[in-house]
């Protein structure tokens, strides 16, 4: 078996710790969307650790890269990652979804440092990200705009309005990441509204497409290393992911879209995540 390098192990450790943080935060507040947050953890950890040129000390720097979480219901993952990056104190995570907190069940840009636009209703953030990318082109700012949408979110017509505009205006400073976990609220996408081929569709809309395993840091590194693309098209990274990734009994089960674990399940979930954290730490220390 190929030896995994230390950087990858460290990213995997961060991802496991992030999942643990998400689970504890959501369960404490009796919130929701554990599984939707878990499917994007590796992508977010990778982006904020390795890709985004953004400083929590200057969150309003006009030259910063911007990240837009268009599938706002995955915000628990974003909150833990932003806190780890230092955009706000980690103690604020303990206030999640309680009166007076800046952190709600969907992100509010006017209150949370590091959140570029408020999202929650599907199919909105992508258009705003297109606006950010267009503004950078006009202002001759070279930074990049990254936007993450869900596969279920791509049911929304506005996604395809935005995709067409981005392709037409050659916004090669825009990178879309599609969290393709193939599971909607009520079942599998192929049974509810089959998206057919995302790659074919985005190519037809004038985009570069890359398909990867969204939980594999090697894949993530390789795909982002190819950016920016040599041509003048925007790029979509179609990340094949697993909803609920990281806690085996939550993986790929529609029930875990909104369910909360009971005490026993919580113990099992934490046990699995803690086990992984200990194992990864040991491997890093080797």
């Amino acid at each position: 078996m190929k030896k995994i390098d230390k950087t990858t192990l460290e990213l995997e450790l961060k991802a496991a710790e992030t999942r643990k943080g998400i689970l504890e935060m959501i369960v404490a507040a009796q919130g929701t969307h554990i599984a939707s947050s878990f499917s994007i953890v590796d992508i977010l950890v990778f982006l904020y650790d390795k890709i985004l040129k953004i400083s929590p000390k200057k969150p309003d720097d006009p030259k910063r890269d911007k990240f837009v979480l268009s599938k706002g219901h995955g915000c628990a993952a974003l909150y833990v990652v932003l806190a780890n990056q230092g955009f706000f104190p980690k103690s604020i995570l303990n206030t999640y979804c309680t009166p007076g907190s800046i952190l709600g069940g969907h992100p509010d840009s006017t209150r949370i440092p590091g959140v570029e636009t408020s999202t929650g209703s599907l199919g909105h953030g992508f258009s705003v990200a297109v606006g950010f990318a267009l503004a950078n082109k006009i202002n001759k700012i070279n930074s990049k705009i990254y936007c993450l949408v869900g596969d279920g979110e791509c049911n929304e017509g506005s996604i395809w309005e935005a995709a067409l505009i981005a392709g037409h205006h050659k916004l090669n400073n825009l990178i879309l990441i599609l969290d393709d976990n193939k599971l909607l609220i009520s079942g599998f996408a192929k049974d509810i509204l089959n998206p057919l081929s995302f790659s074919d569709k985005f190519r037809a809309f004038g985009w570069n497409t890359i398909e990867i395993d969204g939980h594999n840091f090697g894949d993530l590194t390789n795909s982002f290393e190819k950016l920016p693309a040599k041509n003048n098209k925007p790029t979509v990274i179609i990340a094949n992911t697993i909803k609920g990734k990281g806690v085996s009994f939550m993986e790929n089960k529609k029930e875990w879209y909104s369910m909360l674990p009971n005490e026993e399940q919580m113990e099992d979930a934490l046990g699995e995540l803690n086990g992984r954290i200990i194992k990864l730490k040991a491997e890093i220390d080797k």
Partner: protein
Amino acid sequence: MRNAFINSIYKVTRENNNVMCMVGDIGGFLLRNYIKDFPKNYYNLGAAEANMVGVAAGLAMSGKIPFAYTITPFITSRCYEQIKVDVCYNNANVKLVGVGSGVSYGTMGSTHHSLEDIAIMRALPNMTIIAPSDPKEVEEAIFAAVEHNGPTYIRLALQSTLLDYKRGSFKIGKARIVKEGKDVAIIATGEMVGIALEAAEVLKKEDIDCFVINMHTIKPIDEKLIKKLSEDCKVIVSIEEHSTIGGLGSAVSSVLSQYQKNKARFKIMGFNDVFCREYSSDKLKIFNKYGLSSNHLAAEVFKLYDKSNNKKRY
């Protein structure tokens, strides 16, 4: 008013290069000078208005002052959630401009009418609503909107001639007194200001001297003036090219009904919870069909004034 917008956006962009004009595939010919002189400030985002509003929010949050312009229903009700979330919830500095408001597209039917836009826009926090009454006021509104930092909706109708009255400076939220009066006030917005002036002329012949108020800003509404009028007048009538539900009349009514010193009888005139199903290239004919002509307005004022005097005049 459409030409006034075209000229105003040109002038304001010349002064402030952050201003942008985005259209949903209309106005290409009228905007040809704009496109020629400010090619980098102009974007035609196609007939994809929901996306246009989201993009405008992204541009605004990057320091631009985007005006998103198309036919009123398509920049209001069609993309209402984008306006709520991307513009108002983010408090993004986006200017929405609806052209051909009310029943201005008189031959085109209700798909192209907007008789609910003020109502839905009023309900959004952070939103400012301006309905100019003539071409000069369109220009004033556009320049004021650029100065004002926050979501703004500008509702354009058809009025192409200048209303003749002495006007002070334009201030968002401060109504204009077009004509001073006594005992009676007509509060109008948009194109109905002209109709109100005509009605006032009719009423003058009946010895009724009425105020004509140009309520160009519907949100925030000029509470101070409404309260003052309600103390001084026996009758207040509001008139708008909009549903009687949720528009100017509702905004005025909300002030009056919560003001203890109000002593005026009040009537809301507008489209009475109906779709406009009449067709005409002459909007006045449509107003006439729906009881919104200057004569209808004068008659309504007259009736109410009579009642308030508690005597029969004839």
